[in-house]
């Protein structure tokens, strides 16, 4: 079983689904049994989701496509 230190070192990768299946299982196992790490994990995930939500907010200008493809026609 992973220690809290070892789990924390993998938490960001776990949130990004960047761990191998076996590492993922080990982190899950630790989080299931450690309330403090589970709380930290939920908090970090919530922060990242909020930031990610804001970061993808940007209305694409309707003229973007015509502008790009016009430039390509004379490229």
């Amino acid at each position, binding site marked *: 079983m992973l220690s809290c230190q070892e789990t924390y070192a993998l938490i960001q990768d776990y949130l990004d689904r960047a761990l191998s299946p076996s590492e993922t299982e080990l982190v899950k196992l630790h989080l299931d049994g450690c309330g403090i790490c589970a709380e930290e994990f939920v908090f970090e995930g919530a922060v990242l989701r909020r930031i990610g939500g804001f970061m*993808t907010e940007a209305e*694409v200008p309707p003229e973007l496509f015509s502008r790009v493809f016009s430039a390509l026609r004379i490229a």
Partner: protein
Amino acid sequence: MSSDITVEDRSQFESLLRPVLDLAYRYAYRLTLDRDAAMDLVQDASVIAFRSFRQFEPESNFKAWFLKILTNRYYRSRQAAARVAIVNLEDAPDLFLYRQARKLGQPLRDDPAAFVLGQADVAMIDAAMSRLADEYRVVATLHFVSQMSYEECAQTLDIPVGTVRSRLHRARRHLQVSLWQIAEERGYVSPEVDRTCLVAKRHML
């Protein structure tokens, strides 16, 4: 048209470009924080990519290839501009916002990030991202906006996967400190918490 680019090349290029333009714009916008500059960046990258299309390997990842060109173009535009990171990345502790929440006795159920990000808006996030040095901001922006894997980010930025991972993790730590600073500046949270005692001490099992 460049003499060695065929009508078929053009058609293939446009069919590959079209699905990634929205993402490219959002990425460019978050980097430049300016609508016109973002459109210029996407347009310039599109023209450069088109002229270089013969260098694109058909079996490879067009999105990563195109965003690499866009990123390089962005870096070139930034060469003359001096950027200073306000927070030293080495000083950004782990779990900063979590520890602030614990210290302030904030409830951590339901919506645990609400205590500092509940009043946040996109301008607050942009301001915090702007406090990152470019090499960290670009990785974090690409990952947040595109949801690309570490491997795709590495392809796009032409850096090792391990560098993507370490820059992204450090950028997130730094971002949490910057968000707190901005929340303090805006009066969303109390400025009285002593930040110096918040360097994480891990609990041990």
